[in-house]
């Protein structure tokens, strides 16, 4: 029987990882890999389940209705803030929006205005190369050891990535589109909405994708050293206490998060930029296999 290329690809891309996991399970079971350092996939799965059931990962969700009835929003927040996943997500998205929105605004200004661009470019380039986690201590000096400093660090890292991409995106818009807009009577505001934003959107989104990935890295690192909750803390603490299955469970959750972020952004991109959809069949790729 001959499978068509697409079906074969799909089977291969699902089947091979499963094979790897089975192999891992087997090697641990027969004792070639030390169970204490490399938990078997089945053990990790069980750990994930118990952590969810005990409310470590998502908080004690079953207490939610009661808490909301008693204390409203505050009650709900209190319960969720005991789940490592929610805490990390809050920090990631808090920082992401804190950085991305001003990043887009200033990026458009830098893309359009030569004076601002020339003045800010060296500063931006200098700060950009700095690993953002390196300024966590400085940020903690300013904002203290609470939530704010973690969100600010993520915000700073998002800001520069989005800023640089937006600037490039705006600069790369073909001048003829500005000329067409001008000739057909567009004012500044109309030029912004009808030319600059849609013209730069694909590159802005590339920046958003990068910065969401970086946000994940930065927050995990920050939680390693300066937190009592969050996925980074979970991994770090599990390592220190040699609860390796929980450490792996944390890694799995982060992998799932990363995949969801990428998929979610792709979905939004698809909705927001219908003109970017490729109508052509991907024959080139299929042929090369």
């Amino acid at each position, binding site marked *: 029987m001959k499978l068509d290329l697409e079906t074969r690809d799909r089977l291969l891309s699902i089947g091979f990882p499963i094979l790897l996991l089975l192999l891992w399970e087997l090697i641990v079971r027969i004792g070639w890999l030390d169970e204490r350092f490399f938990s078997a996939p089945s053990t990790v799965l069980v750990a994930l389940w118990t952590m969810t059931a005990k409310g470590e990962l998502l908080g004690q969700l079953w207490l939610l209705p009661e808490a909301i009835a008693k204390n409203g929003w505050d009650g709900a927040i209190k319960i969720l803030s005991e789940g490592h996943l929610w805490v990390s997500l809050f920090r990631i998205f808090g920082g992401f929006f804190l950085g991305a929105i001003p990043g887009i605004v200033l990026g458009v200004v830098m893309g359009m205005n030569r004076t601002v661009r020339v003045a800010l470019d060296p500063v931006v380039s200098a700060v950009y190369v700095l690993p953002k986690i390196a300024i966590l201590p400085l940020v903690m000096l300013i904002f203290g050891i609470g939530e704010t400093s973690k969100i600010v660090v993520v915000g700073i890292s998002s800001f520069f990535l989005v800023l640089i991409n937006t600037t490039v995106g705006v600069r790369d818009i073909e001048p003829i589109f500005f000329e*067409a807009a001008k000739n057909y*009577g567009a004012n500044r505001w109309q030029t912004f909405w009808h030319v600059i934003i849609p013209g730069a959107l694909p590159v802005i989104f590339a920046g958003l994708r990068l910065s969401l990935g970086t946000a994940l890295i930065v927050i995990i690192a920050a939680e390693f050293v300066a937190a009592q909750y969050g996925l980074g803390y979970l991994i770090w603490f599990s390592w220190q206490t040699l609860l390796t299955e929980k450490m792996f469970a944390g890694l799995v959750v982060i992998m799932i998060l990363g995949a969801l972020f990428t998929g979610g952004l792709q979905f939004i991109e698809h909705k927001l*930029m219908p*003109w970017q959809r490729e*109508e052509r069949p991907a024959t080139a790729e299929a042929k090369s296999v």
Partner: protein
Amino acid sequence: MKDEKLFIFHPSSFIFLVSIMAVKITTTNVSKFFPSRGRVVTAVKNFNLQVQEGEFVCIVGPSGCGKSTFLRILGGLTPVSSGEVQLVPSQSGAPLQSIVFQEYAIFPWKTVTDNVAFGLEMRGVAPKERRAIASDWLKKVGLTKFADCYPHQLSGGMKQRVSIARAFANDPEILLMDEPLGALDAQTRAVLQEELIRLWEASRKTVVYITHSIEESVFLGDRVILMTAHPGTFKSEFAIPFARPRAFELTGTPEFSRLTYAIWKELQGEVKRAMEQQQ
């Protein structure tokens, strides 16, 4: 500020012009200099042009002669370095001029309908009305089926139809066309020339049409103006006597060939000079 000065209209000259004829465009000694690597390059030199209302004027010149720059000056995208440009408005409310650009200057992020309605949208025409106007123009250029498509789904010829429809839908008093069919293959080009002449003969707007094709200029225009090689200036002009409405059969007649040949003989020297300059 310099841009806007182009369109400032002097009442005194208006009375003067109207008293002779309905002159729509007048340029007087228009020159354009560009600074380039420490030198000053002259793109257009002392160019004089008068276009009557409802006239279809083609400007032909060798490549690099500054004919596109001249059109950009008329369209207010580039200020003049010296000289004067007057576009005379005759109705209020309608836009004075719209450009059909050389390359595919329709917005890739807008649907065909939104592209055609762009000028109307910028002028604040209500959504329902501008969609109706756009769909009417799409019908005229045979793109009704593609109304909701994005430009990347269209062929080159279709894209340029959208670009032409965008200009006509905006309903300006003057249409400025910058080699709108220059990037198309010969067959598509012939089809679009016929469509264009049909659209224009129905509306009789004032047109300045830039092209490097002599055949195209003779087929479309009432008058053909030749430009010299760089720096571009007025060389000579030919009146095109063929009756309208014109159809593609015209291009097969001996009169048509004689005229295109006469223009080619006149322009030949400039084209050679332009080629030498580029070496």
